């Protein structure tokens, strides 16, 4: 598994009051890495500290790892719950030579399947989930099933105001647990004949 904590170093990402997106994504990445390692996963992370990593470098790390799944972690103050995105590239024949900026096109179908499995796990954990497609630098160059996972303040139900802060430890633990369960299910699905 590849965990990509977005932003870092000079690139703070979004600024939400005193919170920086780069710190929130790293915190969740570290927490999730521990959970996955405890379940026997080999986990590769794009960063383990507050360092800048270019989008291209993140994709290189993911592509070298030949991972079963790549999860790019982001945070936002907009909306509520979890937003999950798959590349908006149109699916293409995996046999074709992939251009760097559209390499993910051969994996979009698998990425959508991964998104579905993670969505089920998050819903089971009581999370409010929104699914979508996006053009995200880095994600579009990954040659593995990849999703961008963006967490917002938790909303209790659709339409209600967000309640839980982004840096709430209990909220982050719940997100990490749900993601770990989803990735475990994804791995199990991959082993099925």
């Amino acid at each position: 598994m590849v965990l990509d904590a977005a932003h870092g170093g000079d690139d703070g990402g979004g600024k939400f009051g005193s919170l920086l997106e780069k710190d929130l994504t790293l915190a969740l990445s570290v927490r999730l890495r521990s959970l996955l390692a405890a379940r026997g996963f080999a986990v590769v992370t794009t960063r383990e500290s507050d360092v800048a990593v270019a989008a291209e470098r993140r994709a290189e790390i993911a592509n070298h790892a030949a991972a079963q799944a790549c999860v790019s972690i982001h945070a936002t103050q907009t909306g509520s719950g979890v937003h999950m995105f798959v590349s908006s590239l149109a699916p293409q024949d995996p046999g074709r030579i992939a251009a760097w900026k559209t390499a993910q096109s051969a994996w979009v179908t698998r990425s959508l399947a991964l998104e579905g499995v993670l969505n089920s796990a998050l819903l089971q954990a009581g999370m409010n989930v929104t699914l979508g497609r996006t053009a995200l630098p880095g994600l579009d160059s990954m040659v593995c099933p990849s999703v961008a996972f963006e967490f917002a303040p938790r909303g209790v139900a659709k339409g209600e105001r967000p309640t839980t802060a982004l840096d709430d430890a209990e909220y982050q633990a719940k997100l990490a647990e749900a993601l770990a369960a989803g990735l475990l299910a994804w791995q199990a699905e991959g082993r099925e004949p």
Partner: protein
Amino acid sequence: MSMVRRIQTGLFVFLLVASVAMAVVLWQLRERAHERLLAGQDSAPTQAPVISAEERATLLVANDADSSMQPRELTLPLPQDDGSRARVILGKLLDLYALPDAAHPVAGGAAGIGQVFLLPAENLNGPVAGSVRSVGPAEASLAAARGATAGSLATGIKGGTVARTADGGPQLAVVDLTSAFVASHPSGIAAETLTVQSICATLHANLPRVTQVRFLVDGQQRATLAGHADLTRTYLASDAGPTEGTNP
């Protein structure tokens, strides 16, 4: 002593006369410059002001609560030129986002749209494959130059809008956002993607020939909108229709 006093008095009188003379000369120069300026201007009204007729426009308005876009019909005074229409319609969309109770709040309003260029889409390198397509950094500028000079019946770039093609083919819209709008845009994949998609869908809903959309910021290519949504891509406008949120 009296000799020194006479010299001082003489010097004072001389400086006073020189100051008055310089003031008179400067006043005369100013008057002449003003007359030259007025002579160069033709203030006679030679063209009647054009009052645009009110027409219906469809805006695809984003909602952060469920990451959806909903169509909203409005009646607006719209110019006849397609580029100007696109600019007015997108300006109205951003005005809605700048309202205090906006469901997708983004500061800036209509001033966030610098220019909208409409170019023949077929002038770019071949057909578009997929939802988004990579385009080199200089391609939009080159396309703008080609569209303004080689597009059929192109009218040229003037006054912030451009280039109308009369061949009825698909068009590429180049939306030039202002850096002030981009700087004030909320950061996040969902928020940025919604802004991009609502602009694309609104353009396509009102100008069906617009099938592709590219973004510039202050006339320059920029990597992302606010750290996430890729602005180096060409977006397919027809893919960005109304959506429903997928919340449970």
